[in-house]
Every structure is written in structure tokens, then in C-alpha cells.
């Protein structure tokens, strides 16, 4: 865009339609008009976070049993629910006689801040002073999928860009050989599915890239059987030379972009398997996360998240399945907490150790 003729309208339009060019960060750095136009006034605090790791428990863990201690509720455990709590409310699945359920788990204060946490999260308790609990989040969506969409896109239905897409779009890429926005899964994907990291009306280049935990991490990453890296290199070399011929003849800059994207694809063929191979991590690191090379576990994904942000990913989202516990809180919740508590705490400690916690948000 020619900065001298840029109007606010054009700026918004081009950002919206994209064509893969106008990343906010680049514009802010490059355009002398960006600040003068008052387009994006600076926030009242200095922005610190450069990347986000987001841990999503599919099915919604019971906050009353983990983060939100309710002693009064515990006292009234088993009593009938007072009428005034129910009046005028609509519930998706609850019917018949309603009783109050206090948490069967013990809470204690941790760290200097005295953060109250349930006994189910002993490892997370050791990093209590690095945690801030937000207890005011609320949605009117009564179902998993729309509520997830609301949480991730700000809107209960499809069609809007995911949080990570906005970050990728706004902050741009730090990595030369990996995607900016990566999604990792442990267990089957429930709820709203892949729409949770869709780019909505932003160009698809900003959508999250799901790295699979078995087989190729990225679709079609491996060469077809029988084609060696040398063969591939020769083919890519020919493609490059022919594309350069075409660039000379036609002059379309898209051809130059394509040439560089083929180079990135080639780099990803080695960088992604290298990223996913955690077997070379020191034993004590693997131990701290509870990670085991070759497994598709949440612990492994926590470690991969750290490796990804180290390599320049902006947004890493971890989705863990099977948190929709209903009547099985007593048995399933402790088991699931065991799956995630250690890895999540280790991730925070590890980022701190590497000096990355200051500018990495873990949500």
C-alpha cells in the first residue's frame, strides 16, 4: 500500500481482505502514517506478551471443584436448590428435583498470593504465584460447541476468526520455517471442532495449523515412498528455475512468493519432524513434564508447545478431550487432573527457566 495515499477506509479494507500482505505489525513499523492517523492508540499499559499458549479442556472442567472454592455450597451439599436461584432461568439438560452439590475435594491456599486451589492440582499449586484466576467469565451459550465458539471467536456461531488467527494476523510470523499458529490435540476433538481455529473472514493463511500427533504432523509432509530428499531437491530445483523463467517473462510478484513458499515447504519437511521429536530432550525435562516420546499425550503436547514458542510460533493451542463429567466428577475429574496437572505446571516452570514467561501468556 502506498502509505501517502492510505486512508483509514482503505486500510481497514485491505486488512480485512488481506491477500496475504497487510500484517498489522509490518504496517505499524513501516507506515509513518500509522500513529499520526490515530488509528491504533497505544494501550494504557506497555504491551508485553509476544505469544500465547492456550490450554483448552474440551467439555469444561468443573471450576467449583478446581479453582472456585465455595465453602457455603459444601455446607449445603445435598439440600434442595433454593427457588430463587432457579427462577426465570433456562437450563439445557436439568430437570426434576434439583439438589446442591458441594465439592468433595479439599481446597488450600498456595504461594505468597494465597491462591486457593483444589487438592486435585498439586503441581499447579507449586506455581501459584505465576497464576491469575479470572472468575468472571460468563456466557449465555448453553451448549458446548457454541460456548467454545464464543470463547475462541467472541461469537457463538461460525464465521468469525479465532483468537489465534487475530494474533497471527496482528503480530505476524517470527519463524522462517514453521507456521505461526499451531494446534495440538490429545484425545478426540469434541464440540465445535476445527472451527475453533478457523480464520473466519480473515484469509486462510491465518488459520491454525493442526499438528497431528501420530503419522505426519502436517498433512502431506513426507515425500511419497521411493522419493529421497535428493530426488525431491532436484525436482524443487527444476521447479524453482522454471518459475524464475516465468517470473522474468511475466513479472508477477506472486511467482516470487510461490518460489519462497516452496522453499519454506522444503524447510518444514525437516523442521517439523525435528520439532516433533522430543526424544532428544534431557531426561529431567521429560520427567518434569511426564512426557514420553511417541505418545500423543497432553504432557507431550505441553513440551511441544514450549518447543514451538522457542522456535517462533506465536500461538499454540492445546486441546485435551474428555472433561464433560456430569455425574462422574468423583472419579473422572481426579483422573483427568492427573493427565494435565504435571505437564501444565512443568510448562510454566520451563518457560520461566528459559526467561520466556515474561512475554508468553499461558491461558
Amino acid at each position, binding site marked *: 500500500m502506498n502509505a501517502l495515499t492510505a486512508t483509514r477506509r482503505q486500510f481497514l479494507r485491505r486488512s480485512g481482505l488481506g491477500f496475504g500482505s497487510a500484517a498489522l505489525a509490518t504496517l505499524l513499523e513501516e507506515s509513518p502514517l500509522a500513529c499520526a492517523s490515530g488509528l491504533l492508540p497505544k494501550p494504557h499499559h506497555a504491551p508485553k506478551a509476544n505469544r500465547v499458549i492456550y490450554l483448552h479442556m474440551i467439555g469444561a472442567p468443573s471450576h467449583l471443584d478446581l479453582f472456585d472454592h465455595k465453602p457455603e455450597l459444601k455446607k449445603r451439599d445435598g439440600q434442595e436448590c433454593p427457588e430463587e436461584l432457579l427462577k426465570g432461568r433456562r437450563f439445557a439438560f436439568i430437570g426434576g428435583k434439583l439438589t446442591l452439590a458441594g465439592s468433595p475435594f479439599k481446597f488450600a491456599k498456595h504461594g505468597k498470593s494465597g491462591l486457593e486451589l483444589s487438592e486435585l492440582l498439586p503441581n499447579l499449586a507449586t506455581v501459584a504465584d505465576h497464576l491469575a484466576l479470572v472468575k468472571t467469565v460468563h456466557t449465555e451459550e448453553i451448549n458446548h460447541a457454541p460456548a467454545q465458539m464464543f470463547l475462541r471467536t467472541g461469537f457463538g456461531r461460525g464465521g468469525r476468526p479465532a483468537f489465534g488467527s487475530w494474533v497471527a494476523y496482528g503480530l505476524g510470523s517470527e519463524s522462517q520455517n514453521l507456521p505461526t499458529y499451531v494446534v495440538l490435540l490429545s484425545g478426540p476433538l469434541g464440540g465445535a471442532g476445527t472451527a475453533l481455529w478457523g480464520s473466519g473472514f480473515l484469509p486462510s493463511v491465518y488459520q491454525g495449523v493442526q499438528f497431528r500427533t501420530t503419522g505426519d504432523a502436517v498433512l502431506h509432509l513426507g515425500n511419497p515412498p521411493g522419493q529421497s530428499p535428493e530426488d525431491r531437491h532436484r525436482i524443487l530445483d527444476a521447479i524453482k528455475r522454471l518459475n524464475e523463467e516465468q517470473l522474468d517473462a511475466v513479472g508477477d510478484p506472486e511467482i516470487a512468493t510461490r518460489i519462497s513458499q516452496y522453499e519454506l515447504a522444503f524447510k518444514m519437511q525437516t523442521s517439523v519432524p525435528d520439532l516433533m521429536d522430543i526424544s532428544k530432550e534431557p531426561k529431567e525435562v521429560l520427567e518434569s513434564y511426564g512426557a514420553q516420546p511417541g505418545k500423543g499425550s497432553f504432557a507431550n503436547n505441553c513440551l511441544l508447545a514450549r518447543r514451538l514458542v522457542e522456535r517462533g510460533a506465536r500461538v499454540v493451542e492445546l486441546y485435551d478431550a474428555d472433561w464433560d463429567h456430569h*455425574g462422574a466428577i468423583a472419579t473422572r475429574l481426579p483422573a483427568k487432573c492427573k493427565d494435565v496437572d504435571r505437564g501444565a505446571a512443568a510448562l510454566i516452570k520451563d518457560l520461566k527457566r528459559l526467561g520466556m514467561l515474561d512475554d508468553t501468556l499461558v491461558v
Partner: protein
Amino acid sequence: MSDKAPDAYEKVVDRLLASPQFGVKWARPWLDAARYADSHGFQRDDLRDLWAYRDWVVSALNADIPFDRFTIEQLAGDLLPNATQAQKIATGFNRSAPTNVEAGSDPEDTRVNQVFDRVNTLSTVWLGSTLECAQCHDHKYDPFSQKDYYRLFAFFNSTAIEADRANPKVPGSIKFLGPVMELNDPAADVARMKLQVELATVTKKLAARAEELHAPDAVWESATRKAVADSPREHLLEVTRFDSSGGATHEVLKDGSVLLSGDPPDKDTYTVTAKTNLVGIRGFKLEALTDSSLPGKGPGRGDAVRPNFVLNTFAVTVSKPDGKPSVVKLKAAKADFSQANMPVAGAIDADPKTAWAINPQFGKPHWAVFGTDAPLGFDGGAVFTFTLVQDYGGGRTIGRLRLSALTGGTDTAIPSKVSDALAVAAEKRTAAQQKAVLDYRQSQDAESTRLHAEQRRLEAGLVQVPTVKTLVMQELLAPRPTTVFKRGDFRAPGERVEPGTPGALHAFDPKAERNRLGLAKWLVSKDNPLTARVTVNRLWAELFGAGLVTTPEDFGAKGEPPTHPELLDWLACELQEPTPQAPLPEGKGEKSPAWSVKHLLRTIVLSSIYRQSARLTPDLRAKDPENRLLARGPRFRLDAEAIRDNALSIAGLLSPKLGGPPVRPPQPEGLWVKVGGERYDYVVSAGEDKYRRGLYVVWKRGAPYPGFVAFDGPARVACRVARPRTNTPLQALTLLNDPVYVEAALSFAKRVVTEKPDATTDDRIAHAFRLAVAREPGAKEVAVLKALFDAERDAMARTPAAAKQLVKDFAAPAKVPPAEFAAWYAVCVALLNLDETITKG
């Protein structure tokens, strides 16, 4: 071009316009706008048939149905006088709106959202306006009031609901509904008729036999009464409490069975409590029943194709009321049917892995009986708690179950309602008791049993006769009143409004119908300043990569003004009413009809502006990088479907077949895994269907074909009138490594060597080059490919195992040495990956 005649270019254009593939190409952008897909979207995302609408679009474009009729039939075909089947199919345009059938969703919310979607789509497609802004408040930039919005809403507010609770009391029981039309298929009609006639005969015979059996038969009655006295009896247990660990909702039906609903959890454990005053209980009967609300009728909940259940553990405890429960020891399990590797005994043994299941006897009720060690029951009543553990996963849980206690033994019991009825004198029995006796007598009667089996066979046959169905619009007899929704919230109705069009636009013809038909006519009225411009702009964008208005979705104050307003206006008039001196399509001597899309496309592609070279000089690049001023011809990447079509065509694989159900090309495994709704195995289409054009590839909103997603194919969850055009490394990986493109490269290589059997390597390279990019290669280009060919042939000759592995199951030409074929493969991969191959211009 080999044709050197001065009108050679025109002839090619006319040939392409007349090709049946014309409709396939031009249906793609229209189906993006129509948000056409093969699944209903949201979490459930089940498939449903709407492809007849997709085929209607293709044939309408091929027939060059005038755009005004094209509009009217899609928006209101059902309201035309004596509407034809095709006109009703066309209304599938608006049935493409995504439908939310997630358990617990509010049907009215879903319905209102679908109407919003219809209004917004109409406004984008025909008015090029962001009318959706006026859903919550007056439009901030364009002259549309919130009231205008809801007046348009009123036109669409009177069709049947499309998702509702199957059972009004159970919020989880949302079902996909809405008007469905069966399409004519003479062959299927004949087959169906024949079965129906046979079925009628059998049913008549059964009724006659029932009449005979209904006649009092003292001998049979006394014998049966004696049998009752000696035999075990069933007593239905009344369920007092039911819990599902997976959070499934349930309802106790009149017959005492428990019907589950909601999204089936992966695994589930039911806890069922029942009280009874019976004593001398010798066993329990568990029935797993079918129900029309279950996928494939059940009895399992997991999916419609294999509605199995896997019962890992069936356990019972007994207690006096308020007493302590003790475990009941069960033995001698038997069932009407057990799956080969999952016998019913597995449900009561100590091993939680063994279980009772019923594959392949789906869609039928089943029962199991478990004996007790000692007679159970207390005077003053007993409480039984049954635990049904179903841990297999995949929703293999029972969808409808009923529990009975058995007294007298566990042999096949005479149902209690029969024995109760027999205790009453024949002439004093109630209608229900008479029926119970007759049903039992029939079940014991060989002739009736045979006729019943025959009846079931014919019914199953009828279900199997394929019926083609499609979703259509249908007006309710009594229109729904419409109000403004305050802040766009359907729970906050405001002022009442009647159907009407925005005041800032041309007037609604007072003689026209105040329904969708009138609305459609209003859209294509000559007085409408928008429809023709917006349409022409979209067609232009499809040809040039960008419209004369670069915001095809917004012609309003926030949109970009046209770069060539006079041209846009002239083209819009040309679409509505072609000038007589304009070139005539397909060489016919008459004036082109009004609203002819083919005429307009022909006019544009014959223009000198379209036929310019796409070459971008440094000067042009500096002055007009985005080609807004059209000083050069269009050059842009092909769309997702066209990239695959093009590669298959170069490879000689592409099937030109038109129409029919969606096809499934190969894709990586596991992409269709989802929670809730029906489960589908992704089975790759057989034969030529694997190589059909991209338009026919199944469009599943939750998991669109990944080869298209990589090239900006949308999920089709909402109307889109432009696709972004990204340039990413994932596109490179797709073209290089996706098995679809690997196979295309192998076939391309085969084509090159078999079509030029005796040619030199250079000639073959030139041939391949022409096939890929439709021009002669330059000397340098041949040299690059020759070098690649030589290097690969040498490398592959050194590693014969790799060459063999590369070709694998592919039928490579026998006469060509493997190393040489592998080298041709490399050349073909390079050609299929060229920027020029996937770019127009």
C-alpha cells in the same frame, strides 16, 4: 491455435460456452454464494441430500436460463403457478442454510438464525449490501433501517421449522426436519410398486389368519392357562430412577421402557433403580429395544449404519426399602442373539472387557435373561439397582431399554399381560387384553410366523429401493407474524412489521404477491439499480480475478467505488437487455435474450481488454500493481477445485461425468471423526467417481476436503461472493505429496511416454510441457527439464528399489525401464507444480 481463421478465437469461445462443462465451472462461484454443502453444519454436521439442487444450478447455467428466471426459481420456485419439479428443486438455494441440531439447542433460535441467513444471503448476492448490519440497529452507513431488515425477514418467516425436538419434553432430542421432496425415478417407482403389491397381499393374508385365530378356542385357552401355571412369568419393573454417567438425557415411555436422547457420550454407565412387591424372583430380563428416534432405529446409539451396543457389565443389587444393598449373584445368561465374539455371558462374568453385543443384527429389538442364584424379593417390597456398564467407546450404548423380573423360572416366559388376560373370561376381556391374547397366539402360530417374516422381508426391500430426495422450501398455510427484534435478539420482540422492501430502493409493485415470489420479482425488476450491477461485477471478478467494484459484497458507502463506473453500467444494461448489434452467442441469427449470462460472458471475453497480455512491466507494476486500471490482462491462481481438475485433466484421469450424489476422492484418514450425530467412515469412491470434477466432491462443512481447504476452499457455512487467494507452503506440500497428485503425476508420466512412443526425450518434454501449460517450451525450459530427467534417471538406475517403490501398484507401461519411468515421473511432478500450471493468464 492451429485454426488460423480470423474468427478462430470466437469459435473456441463459443465451443466452451456450449460445453456441458461450462455449467460445472460457473456453478462453483454460485454455490459459494448459495453456501451449498452436503452436510447441515454445526457440531452434528450430518450429511443430507441436497445435490439435486447443485445439479439444477449446473443445468440451469448450461441452458442459460435468463438470470431473472434463475433468481425467481431459486427464491420462490415453489410459489410459481403449477410449479414443476425442477422449479421446486431450485428452492434448495435457501435450504442450504446451515441447521443446528445440537442436543439442547433452542429450535426457535435455530429457525430465526436460518431466516437471518436467508435475508443476509439475499442482500449480499442480489443487492451487494451489508444489510445484516441492520439486524440489531439502523445501518450506520447505508440507508437501511432496522425495520427495513425485518420487513425483508417477514418474507422468509413463514416456512416450516427445520430442526425441532423429537420429543417436546426432552431438550436433547433435536431432529433435522423440514420439507423434503422425493424426486421422480421411474425405475425405482416400478420396483417399489411391485413390492407394495406383494406386501398388500401378505398383509391381507395375515389379517385373515388373525381373524381365524381371534375366534375363541377353548382347547388352546385351557392348554395355555395350564402352561402359564407351570411356566415362568415376566413382570415389568417400574423404573423409579435412572442415571447416565455420560450425561445423556432420558425419558420413561408409556410401555415402561427408558429412551435415551442427547448426543451419545463415548462411553456410558446406566444406573437404574426399580421397586417391586414381587417375591420369588428367579431372574431378570433386559430388553434392548428399537425406536425411530435412534440412529438406524437402534438399539445402539452410536451411528445409523452400525447401531450396536456393547454391554460390558450387567450387575444388580437388592435391598429392603431403606435397607443396605447386597449384590445379587447372576448366572445362566442367555439372549435371543449374541455377536460371534461377544456372548451374553460376558456381561455377568468378572472380566470387564468381555461383553454382550449384537452385530450384525441391527435395527431389531433384542433381549437377554439373567438367572438369580436364589429367589429374591421381600414382603413389604424390594429395591433393585441395576448397573449397565458400556465402556466400548464410540457411543456403543443402549438407546432404549426395559427391565422385567421373572418369577417361576427363566425359561421363555409367557408375558404377564397374556397370563393376566387369560385369567379373565374371554367375553369379558378389554380390547387391550384381547390384543395381548391374539398377539401371543399369533406368535405361537407357524403360519402367522411365516407371514410375519415375509412381511418384514418385503418392508426391508421397500426401504432399500433408492429414493432420491432433496430439500425444498414450502410456505406455511398460516403465515408467522413478524416483529422487529430489539438488538437482534429473537427473545426481545418489538414493533410488528409486514413483508416489504427497503424504502431507499425502488418501489415494490403493488400488484405483485406479498410473498417470496413478489420479492424475487422485485429483485429482478428493471427499476432495481443493484441486481444487474452486482451480478455483472461478480462475473467480471471471476474472469479478471477482481471486480470493477473490488468489494463484491458491499456496493454501499463503505464499499470501494467502481474503477470503471460507465463500463459497469454498460455491462449491467447489456445483461438486462442486450444491444442488437452485440455479437450473437452460438452463431444464432437472433438477438440475444435478456438476462443472458452466456451473452455477457461472451461479450467480456471477446473484448480486447480481456485478451491483453498479462505481462507486468516494471513501469506497470509501479503505476498500478493491482491492475485496477486494466492495462494488462488477468493473471491469478486457479481456485481450489480447478487446481485438482486441471491436474487430473493433464494426467488424462479427469472424468467429465455430470451430476449425481457427491463423490469422495482419497483424503488422509481420521478427518471425519466428530462427536455427536451420525458416524461416517470415509470410503473413497470407486472407479471414475474418484476422478470426478471438484464440484462433485462431498462438501462436509465440519471437515471440507483438505486439498481444497489448502487452496482457500471455504467451509460454506455462510454466503461468500469472493474467495481469498493465499500462497502458502501447505499448498506446495499438497501438490508435491498428496497421494491424489502423486497419482496424477504417475498417470501424466504414463501419458507422456505412451502418447509419444518413439519420440526423443526433448520431444516428449515438449509434449508434456504443452499438456501442462498449453504453450511451447523455450529452449532454456527444455534444458532444465532435460537435466532433471537425466539426473533422476541416473539416480533411479542406482537405486532400483526406490524406483520400484515409487511406482508401487501403479500400472506403469511395461516397455519403459523403471528408472526411466521414475525420471518421467519427476519431470511430471515439476510440471504439475509450476506456478504457470496453477495460474490463469
